[in-house]
């Protein structure tokens, strides 16, 4: 997905805008992609693809989206992503457990909102501190929340292992516990949230976020409510991460404990948006593909090339080195993220002139936030 498509997505969901035939034409590739994702993939995919690749890829892209809204658009760096995901997962679990009459999609949304509320609290220090100090302060939330979920049995219904496990996944009586069902549920949630996010970043709210990111003192002076914008970014970003966490727990793993949402997860999501592109919706998907799928690809390729001939431990170490080196290489080659690369490619693939004028905020910058 290129970010031109994301713009198309925004047009796609904005009534009226799609009437413009050019908007329609731009929406077409996205429509095709969605058709493939919703129709062809479920027919053609295997359990392996759903369970091991597509579902985690989509969920991590969603978590990336949450962090990107917060960090890429609003400029508030956070390493609390794991904690937000955990909050969403544990909140949704408890809603499903304690209020079984609420349908699954609503519990998911409510779980996300609870994560958003926690996000606001975590974001309070952002009113006073910036940059790495803010980043470091979100770590407090990361460790504290992880500890709380692990420590107090109530959150996991006093399970012996403090872990939570998915109830039967069903919407309107439709069983979704099969791999395809879980894939479709994840895909629907991700597409819906991405559509709303695409809309949001182009709205007043999104503009205020970008203003705060680019120059918060000037933003305040010209009348942008800086504090409210920061907190609303924390709210929305954490809520999206919360839904991602709930999906991670229920649609992907089935059973998780708080360690699944540790600091490593926060770093992984940050990698996704840096590699994919800050301030780009499509970048989350590209970044997620890179971070989630590359290790799998590396391991499959190296198994096939060297399996049996090279010592397995050495091979695993080489993969780790290759993964780290590739990250550095991409950061050097494409500091604005792969989304910028994809977008340039996209523009070149189309005849000149139809690529559309410069409009709104675009990636293609270096994503400096501090």
């Amino acid at each position, binding site marked *: 997905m290129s970010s031109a498509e994301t713009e198309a997505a925004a047009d796609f969901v904005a009534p009226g805008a799609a009437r413009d035939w050019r908007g329609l034409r731009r929406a077409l590739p996205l429509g095709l992609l969605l058709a493939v994702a919703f129709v062809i993939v479920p027919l053609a995919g295997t359990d392996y693809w759903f369970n091991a690749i597509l579902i985690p890829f989509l969920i991590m892209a969603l978590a990336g989206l949450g962090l990107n809204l917060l960090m890429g658009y609003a400029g508030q760096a956070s390493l609390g992503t794991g904690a937000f995901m955990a909050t969403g997962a544990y909140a949704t679990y408890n809603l499903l457990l304690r209020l079984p009459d609420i349908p699954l999609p609503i519990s998911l949304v409510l779980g996300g909102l609870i994560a958003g509320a926690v996000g606001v609290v975590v974001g309070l*220090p952002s009113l006073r501190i910036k940059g790495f*100090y803010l980043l470091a*302060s979100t770590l407090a939330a990361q460790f504290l929340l992880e500890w709380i979920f692990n*420590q107090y049995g109530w959150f996991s219904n006093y399970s012996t292992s403090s872990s939570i496990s998915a109830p039967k996944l069903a919407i309107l009586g439709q069983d979704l516990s099969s791999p395809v069902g879980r894939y479709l549920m994840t895909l629907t949630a991700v597409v819906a949230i991405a559509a709303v996010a695409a809309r949001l970043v182009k709205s007043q709210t999104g503009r205020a976020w970008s203003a705060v990111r680019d120059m918060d003192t000037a933003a305040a002076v010209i009348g942008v409510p800086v504090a409210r914008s920061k907190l609303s970014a924390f709210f929305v970003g954490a809520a999206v991460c919360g839904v991602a966490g709930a999906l991670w727990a229920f649609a992907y793993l089935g059973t998780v404990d708080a360690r699944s949402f540790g600091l490593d997860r926060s770093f992984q999501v940050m990698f996704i948006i*840096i590699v994919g592109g800050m301030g780009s919706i499509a970048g989350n998907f590209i970044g997620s593909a890179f971070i989630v799928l590359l290790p799998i690809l590396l391991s499959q390729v190296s198994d096939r090339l060297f399996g049996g001939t090279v010592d397995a431990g*050495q091979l695993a170490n080489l993969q*780790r080195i290759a993964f780290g080196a*590739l990250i*550095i290489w991409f950061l050097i080659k494409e500091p604005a993220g792969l989304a910028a690369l994809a977008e340039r490619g996209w523009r070149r693939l189309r005849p000149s002139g139809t690529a559309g004028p410069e409009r709104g905020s675009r990636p293609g910058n270096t994503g400096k*936030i501090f």
Partner: protein
Amino acid sequence: MAFLIETLIGGLLSGVMYALVAIGFVLIYKASGVFNFAQGAMVLCAALTFVTLRDQGLAFWFAALVTLAIMVVLAIAVERVVLRPLMNQSQITLFMATLGLSFVIEGMSQLVMGASVHELDLGIVDTPVEVGPILVSQFDLVAAAAAGILVLALSVFFNVTRIGISLRAIADDPQAALSIGIRLQRLWRIVWGVAGFVALVAGLLWGSRQGVQFSLTFVVLKALPVLIIGGFTSIAGAIVGGLIVGAADALAEIYVGPLLGGSVSTWFVYVLAVAFLLIRPAGLFGERAIERV
């Protein structure tokens, strides 16, 4: 009361060990504005190299020298391959690059030197010393003394030598520093090399405390709140921050943990650090820039 004092002393001594790791961060942050997450991997790499060399039968000082040489080579490579191409990128990009770097260093270390756990014996006797009713660890005393000497040496190095003055100039105003002819790349190499030396000392002390193994990289997590409290740019801050974190950690574990029914040290010092930040937004010793518009 004796127990309180004993806990406090134990905590303060641990704090010096945290400060030791934090100083590595401070040096690099001051010189290149990079929050170097690979510092943990460097600690592991240094300790693992040293132990492997010792296992090959090298003498202590010789092993230390060879390890130091390797760390310097690593510093030069990092400057050339990672930092220089990423100059002028945002700090967060550089931060992420150091995360990638930590994968590379960890992978390389384990690839070359294996993953097994090594014992590291520095020959420091570790029988407890009793001062009245209070028990003090001899090892911790020695470690704290070593850290103290290191800090003193670094302070002298950075306050007296030309390099130190250049470093302060860079930290104050990179543009101006460049314009008066400070060679940034050479400075970076030196500072990363010194950070490698600090990593070696930290690796030796931590390694002999817990064995040389992968989890040496985790000491970073305790160094972070030290940095938040002390400020990213101050060596003195790292020391004071380390002492605060060590003492708070130990006291909280004893007096707060039981109230909450668990171990609080994963998060307590972080929350404390945030509390400090809210009062001093750039750490205790960090300078807060005046906003100019």
